[in-house]
């Protein structure tokens, strides 16, 4: 895959004729692994207890929490039935205990990771998530935090390059 076709390059507006093209090409391995991680987080072969639709909705929600509109639109392009509600930052889960716990945790880890405590992981277990699903959710939230920051950083670099 052409590195300038990766989500990160496209979202940050860096193309093959950009002044940053050379620097980016030197890290083409990282861009490819980032793209693979995106697939593994958003569209895994074995999604376990966290569906593709839920993953896309949560990713979009996280992007909105970061004021990252371009990536929010990208994650929206992956939406299917059930994604929309989770991406709505005013939605807290209604009466669905599992969704409520997932949304609370996603917002907490996105906005204030420093405040996460053991009880927050216990709360996910109480809401019915098993250990593997807790790891899947954590990887999704954490990867999106990374992807957003890479795009934010590249965009700032492009203003200076």
């Amino acid at each position: 895959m052409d590195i300038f076709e990766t989500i990160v390059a496209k979202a940050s507006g860096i193309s093959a004729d950009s002044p940053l093209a050379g620097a980016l090409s030197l890290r083409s391995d990282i861009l490819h692994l980032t793209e693979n991680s995106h697939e593994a987080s958003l569209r895994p072969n074995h999604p376990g207890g966290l569906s593709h639709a839920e993953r896309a909705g949560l990713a979009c929600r996280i992007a909105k929490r970061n004021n990252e509109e371009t990536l929010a639109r990208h994650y929206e392009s992956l939406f299917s039935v059930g994604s929309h509600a989770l991406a709505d930052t005013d939605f807290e889960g209604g009466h669905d205990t599992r969704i409520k716990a997932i949304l609370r945790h996603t917002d907490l880890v996105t906005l204030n990771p420093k405040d996460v405590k053991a009880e927050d992981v216990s709360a996910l277990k109480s809401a019915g998530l098993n250990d593997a699903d807790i790891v899947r959710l954590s990887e999704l939230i954490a990867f999106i935090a990374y992807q957003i920051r890479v795009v934010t950083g590249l965009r700032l670099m492009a203003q200076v390059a």
Partner: protein
Amino acid sequence: MNEPIKEFTSSIPFWQPRVIPLELEQASDEQLDAMKVTVSNTKIGEYTLVLALDPETLQQRTPLFNGIMYGRGGLSRAETELGAVAASVVNRCIYCAAVHANRYSQLTKDESVMDSIFTDGEDADLDERQKALLGFATKLSKCPSEATRSDVERLVDNGLSMGEILDLVLSASLFGWANRLMHVLGDPLHQD
């Protein structure tokens, strides 16, 4: 009783998972394959066994992590570690901060920089280049990011190339990821 460590330290803690790690004997071929990228087959840490519960992401994350932290060329190893520490301080990941502060101090043979960051955070008493690196990586690690164009200009003014700045972006961003696993999925405890 061994309480979780709350303050930054250069002594590397013991990491106690909050979920039950994979039992090696029960690992699938996919999980074994995802884990062996990182480790010699003698000992697999609890953290890897936790992440192996989701082998598809682990499979990609390990080479990505190594590529950013240990890739050839670009930003120096020590300054890459500084980006990791900046994120870990913002996210208060005691474990990651300890490991990467240690690496920084070993590489530079100077413990004063990390001591100062652990005590004073963003206001640490550092040289101009270190301040520029720490300042940018700290702001990028906030949610939402507070980094601006002038923070990047400050890096350029302190002699960083675009390739080096890219590596700093990657290292700080990578720890936005790593901290959200390490700090969320386990507790840092004193080594017995």
